[in-house]
């Protein structure tokens, strides 16, 4: 019975991989939010800069130049600090995204290799060979069974079909 549903197992694996791949950006965004330690600091800095700018606009440069200059320096310092913070956050997000992608591709490669290893010699399904003539050898690769559908051919077909379906749905 297991042999009869090989085609379904491969199809399910391919579908799962493609589904997870489409959800990767969301996963990496979620992980970066969870792992970000000082996310609130950025909002605090932004609000602080906004308040200081308001205060700066209320000060006359001619009458209170020293105070104006001091406040401006403070704003500049805070803005630089915010920029550094945003840069590090962006780099952190990119790093997490990269790690998540790498992990996914490794897992996907492992899954595909294990499927190919398992069904190297056995076809995923068998049909009468005259149905798929004259491409029976190509379709049966690498199993070599007459009329069989090889794992590579089925993987390619499933990948394409699942990609089309997910693309249409999304």
């Amino acid at each position: 019975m297991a042999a009869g549903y090989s085609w379904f197992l491969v199809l399910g694996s391919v579908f799962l991989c493609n589904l997870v791949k489409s959800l990767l950006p969301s996963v990496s965004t979620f992980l970066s939010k969870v792992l970000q330690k000082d996310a609130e600091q950025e909002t605090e800095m932004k609000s602080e800069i906004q308040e200081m700018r308001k205060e700066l606009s209320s000060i006359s440069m001619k009458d209170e130049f020293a105070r104006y200059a001091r406040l401006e320096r403070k704003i500049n310092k805070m803005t630089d600090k915010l920029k550094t913070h945003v840069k590090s956050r962006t780099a952190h997000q990119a790093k997490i995204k990269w790690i998540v992608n790498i992990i996914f591709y490794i897992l996907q490669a492992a899954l595909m290799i294990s499927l190919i290893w398992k069904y190297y010699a056995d076809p995923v399904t068998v049909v009468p060979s005259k149905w798929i003539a004259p491409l029976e050898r190509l379709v049966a690769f690498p199993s070599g069974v007459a009329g069989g559908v090889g794992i590579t051919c089925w993987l390619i077909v499933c990948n394409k079909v699942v990609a089309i379906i997910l693309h249409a749905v999304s």
Partner: protein
Amino acid sequence: MEPVEDCAPAGAEEGSGPSAAQRRAEVRRRKLLMNSEERMNRIVGYGKNDGDGSPARRAVEPRFHLDLERSEPWSSPVSTKRLSPFLSEAGETAERRGPPLPDSRDGLGSTGTTEGDLPGGVRQRARGNVAGDEHTRSPRKGVQKYLSRFDDALKLRSQMASEKTAQESSSDSEELDSFRVFRLIGSAVLALFVRLFVCKYLSIFAPFLTLELAYMGLYKYFPKVEKKAKTTVLTAALLLSGIPAEVISRSMDTYRKMGDVFADLCVYFFTFILSHEVLVLLGSEAP
């Protein structure tokens, strides 16, 4: 040093256009003609110090000649070697020999070669003004060609950057237009029909080929969707390598059509196998 002095203003005036570059090239050419021997020794790096010191080098190392007509000026200028100017001068002075590569480059740098003026390198001129005039025209062509290609590369780069941001915002690289959807559905329906009625009599790929031929004829009855040619790294590289845009777009179009046929085949085969397995399952479960 005169070349160094030339370097500084040349670098500053880079943006003033080809006229300044031409003037500087002319000044440099006159200096070369007036003081060719001394200049040769300075560039080559031999002369007073190494005049008689390296006979083996003279015998083995080839003479070099740097050409401004090269289309890739930033590749190693000493890789092109022309013997005739140096052969003629070697007869005149015993000190002119091919230098080692780093020295020649240093020599070139010290003579004030700048990006705007002489991107190909310094031309060693030992002949009269006639040859010099011909050669200044070809360096100008080479400079202009290089500058135009550089502009093209920058434009393509900005185009790719803008398309990348647009793609990221839209997040859809290939839209399923009506004809594509029709093709896919038609392939699936045909696969089902073939599994039910036709597969016992002939190969399943024969109806598929007939279907594709029918699609080629039906294509004109569907609204044509203008597909914007995306500038990718591959297309940019092909454009910069000199392949005409028309050829590239036709190749991309052919490649896209082949992809459509492949997608149809995958859907057809998948539907066929799926329907076969369902029928086998229903057949096995039927009493």
